[in-house]
């Protein structure tokens, strides 16, 4: 058993319905520090909803979610606003369609939250920003606006924005689904680099070979439940469940 403090994300028996439609039917999972977990499965299987619940964008009906040891909700009861805010500073989220702020420059997209939420000085925030832009190979784009960047560049900016606050875990919601194959590569390489640096990540993705190569563990979700989970390579090459086999046969 891993040390409790090593568990960055704990999700336990989470249920979520939208009106009459039950989307999550008792999901439990754990992500340990430094671990990369890929979540795969057909559309409508609940992957995105699970991610949205973990990132406070949706409220669960029942179950427990804890991030970095702070309990966001237990038995469907949510913590107070102050703790919620603290929890939000512990994770980053990268959206499928980037959701950069179009009226801010690349630099300001990255530094705005540092300065106005985390109360960093402008100089400090700029330093953090420069480091991230270098890493993302976007230094020369610092003063450009998102509309003048390619989709791949925009997604790299949004990864930089998520990394800026130095989160304990980053969630990716189909980070390459809005990109063409060529741009996809650049974004996946950035995520690979992060995996090498032992960044804790949960990635919802349809890129099966990427999941196999980068993730430590894969979770296959369908119909609101976790159908199968296991070491990435093993699950992709030798799935146990019929449903998993059928899904992977499509790739």
């Amino acid at each position, binding site marked *: 058993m891993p040390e409790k403090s090593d568990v960055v994300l704990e999700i336990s028996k989470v249920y979520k319905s939208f009106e009459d439609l039950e989307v999550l039917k008792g999901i439990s999972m754990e992500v340990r520090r430094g671990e990369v977990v890929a979540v795969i499965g057909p559309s409508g299987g609940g992957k995105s909803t699970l991610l949205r619940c973990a990132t406070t964008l949706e409220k669960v009906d029942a179950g427990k979610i804890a991030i970095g040891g702070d309990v966001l909700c237990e038995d469907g009861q949510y913590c107070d606003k102050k703790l919620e805010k603290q929890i*939000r500073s512990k994770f980053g*989220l990268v959206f499928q369609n980037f959701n950069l*702020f179009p*009226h801010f420059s690349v630099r300001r997209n990255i530094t705005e939250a540092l300065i106005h*939420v985390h109360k960093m000085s402008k100089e400090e925030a700029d330093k953090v920003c420069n480091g991230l832009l270098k890493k993302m190979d976007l230094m020369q784009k610092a003063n450009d*606006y*998102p509309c003048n960047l390619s989709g791949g560049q925009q997604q790299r900016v949004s990864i930089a924005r998520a990394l800026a606050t130095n989160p304990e875990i980053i969630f990716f919601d189909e980070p390459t689904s809005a990109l063409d194959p060529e741009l996809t590569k650049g974004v996946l390489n950035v995520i690979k680099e992060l995996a090498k640096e032992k960044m804790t990540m949960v990635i919802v993705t349809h890129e099966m070979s990427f999941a196999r190569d980068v993730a430590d563990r894969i979770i296959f979700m369908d119909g609101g439940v976790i159908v199968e989970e296991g070491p990435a390579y093993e699950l992709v090459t030798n799935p146990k469940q019929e449903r998993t086999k059928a899904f992977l046969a499509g790739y």
Partner: protein
Amino acid sequence: MGAIQSTLIQLLQGFKFTFGIFFFTLIFSIPLGLLVSKGRMSKIKIVSLIFQLYISILRGTPLMLQLLLVYFGPYYIFGINLGSIQIGPFNYRFIATIVAFSLNYAAYFAEIFRGGIQSMSKGQYEAATVLGFSKMQTYFKIILPQVVKRVLPSVSNEIITLVKDTSLAQVLSVTEMFTKASAAASAQVSVIPFIVAGAFYYVTNLIIEQILNRVEKSMSYYS
């Protein structure tokens, strides 16, 4: 020559009030419009309905009628005599004009702002939320600046209409430019004062158009 000169002087005197109505109406109706649009979008049904009714009535009845109601209403309906009110250089006629114009224009602005706010993608709110911005920060830093850009063309329309609508204050005998032009025209038995007043309105709007174009251009750095 003397007639034209005195016409010009009279119209310029009236223009002070025309500009006053224009200026104060904008100052009051834009924030009020934002509030009304917020109320209109309220999740509490009754609140939303009240603001819907407000917008419906103020857009659905003549501004001239609203002017008369605001001016005469307090006395004839409630028996309150406000006629002697004076705020600085502004008498009750002028104040009633500003109140009626602001209430009326707020209804139009509210619907324009609602369109702008509702056109914002949910993703902008979500990105701001997970980054830890408060509701106020999200609204003033992320949403409002983008809404301003989106609504500017429609707001420009209203601003230009407002310049011309100021002439309706004539019904309350506010000595704005149109009232002055009417008086000069009947005194001189001539249409020249109307033509000169028309030129004044047009040039004013020409200048406003240039300013608004510049503002729009200053926000064209992103799409």
